[in-house]
């Protein structure tokens, strides 16, 4: 039995699969995975050509689905919700394999946990640093008390820095491998629509673009859609959207009949993109952040044709809008609370102590109103949408 420890094997499962395959070619066949210690156990045998597939599935039982059995898959190792399947058939004879979605979603959740940890640790570190800096600014010196307990402080600092390093490594590694997996799975569809798109390579600085900034459109996506459609009718063809989604680059050309659709997705799957793209929708924008995934789709239609719609059933559209508004509300409520407390304190100081009202003191109040307006606009959007659908059905 050969034991190999791979601490970060799950961050890039494709790499791990390749590694397992190489091991089998050298005569080491995977027998067991011990997840807690990240240890792979191998048995020595004759070298074999094996392909591996790692899957993560919440609802999977100990028995493989018949479709996978028929295609030659067997379970090489399983631990928790992870399964490592092996197959001795040549790759071109394998007609079915588990999807990547489970792994992608799981790893994304892991990276969210590391994001949380990172923010917390950086916050703690900054708070300590600012105490140090402010005491140094006040009297120009920092008195260091000799104490045997300093060892503990340094140990904690080392641990904190180590944890920050681990968090950054995990986030970057997961982001990279998730993107690669998504791209591979929707690669065929992507290649198809890329070739159908006009190859209009214009550098951003060429001056040929009509640039328009649009901030906060996420809180009223329907308004963005109708604005884009109106621009197209006037011959302003949307060429692309800036990386963070706030600047829209148009090219002046022929008026087009276009249907635009902007939507929020909490999880992104390759099947999501391929269903839309196969149906003829063109993805013109996808936000970078995995937590706030916004996608803008568009599709041209001819005169006399019905305007293409992404939702044929109002309830599925409303459900998505409601989820988006609900999620942002939950995200913004703690901020609202903090700003309200701060604004109230500034206000009390102004009333009771006659402190001067500065712009700085007004900031919490401004932030409070701003975030409240975001929440208001999202629910207003939802209500508009609901009204639209009820009119449509009457």
């Amino acid at each position, binding site marked *: 039995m050969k034991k190999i420890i791979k601490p970060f094997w799950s961050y890039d499962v494709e790499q791990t699969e390749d590694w397992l395959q190489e091991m089998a070619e050298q005569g080491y066949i995977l027998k067991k995975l011990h997840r807690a210690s990240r240890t792979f156990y191998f048995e020595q045998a004759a070298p074999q050509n094996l392909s591996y597939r790692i899957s993560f599935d919440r609802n999977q039982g100990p028995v493989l689905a018949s479709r996978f059995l028929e295609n030659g898959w067997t379970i090489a190792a399983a631990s928790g919700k992870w399964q490592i399947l092996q197959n001795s058939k040549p790759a071109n004879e394998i007609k079915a394999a588990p999807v990547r979605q489970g792994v992608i979603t799981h790893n994304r959740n892991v990276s969210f946990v590391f994001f949380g940890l990172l923010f917390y640790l950086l916050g703690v570190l900054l708070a300590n640093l600012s105490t140090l800096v402010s005491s140094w600014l006040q009297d120009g010196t920092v008195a260091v008390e000799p104490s045997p307990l300093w060892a503990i402080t340094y140990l904690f600092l080392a641990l904190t820095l180590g944890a920050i390093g681990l968090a950054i490594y995990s986030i970057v590694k997961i982001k990279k491998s998730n993107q690669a997996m998504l791209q591979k799975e929707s690669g*065929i569809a992507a290649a198809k629509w890329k070739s159908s798109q006009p190859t209009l390579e214009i550098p951003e600085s060429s001056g040929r673009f009509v640039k328009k900034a649009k901030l906060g459109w996420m809180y009223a996506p329907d308004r963005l859609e109708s604005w884009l459609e109106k621009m197209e009718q006037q011959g302003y063809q949307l060429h692309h959207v800036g990386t963070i989604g706030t600047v829209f680059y148009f090219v002046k050309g022929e008026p087009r009949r276009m249907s635009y659709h902007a939507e929020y997705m909490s999880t992104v799957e390759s099947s999501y993109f391929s269903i*839309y793209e196969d149906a003829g929708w063109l993805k013109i924008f996808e936000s970078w952040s995995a937590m706030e995934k916004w996608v803008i789709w568009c599709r041209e239609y001819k005169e006399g044709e019905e305007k293409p719609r992404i939702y044929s059933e109002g309830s599925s559209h409303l459900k998505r809008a409601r989820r988006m508004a609900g999620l942002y509300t939950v995200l913004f409520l703690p901020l609202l609370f903090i700003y309200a407390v701060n604004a109230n304190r500034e206000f009390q100081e102004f009333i009771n102590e006659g402190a001067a009202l500065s712009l700085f003191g007004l900031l919490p109040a401004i932030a409070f109103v701003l975030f409240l307006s975001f929440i208001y606009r999202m629910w207003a959007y939802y209500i508009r949408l609901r009204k639209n659908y009820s009119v449509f059905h009457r």
Partner: protein
Amino acid sequence: MNADKVMKKYIPMTETAFYILLSLTEPRHGYGIVKHVEEISGTRLHLGSGTVYGTLTKMQKDGVITVFADEERKTLYEMTDLGKQLILAEIGRLKELHRNAVKYEGDFL
């Protein structure tokens, strides 16, 4: 989700859900479902991509359908045993509707 809960949640079925399940006589791609539904409904139904995707995701979560990747790594949707049970129950309900529709149709003519 257990069978009783699934039956309660899905029956009576929306037209979209019914036709999506009905099209899964064999594993299909997402857009393959849309095309097939268009065909068997005589081009009456054009399912929107977002509606299909949302419904498929929900059904997958409830264990009514399952997914796998084909040799081109594209996702195929497939019926589960629970899904078969569900569509049969709904077909039974629709048969009753149809029987009664035919039986009493004449009274309104």
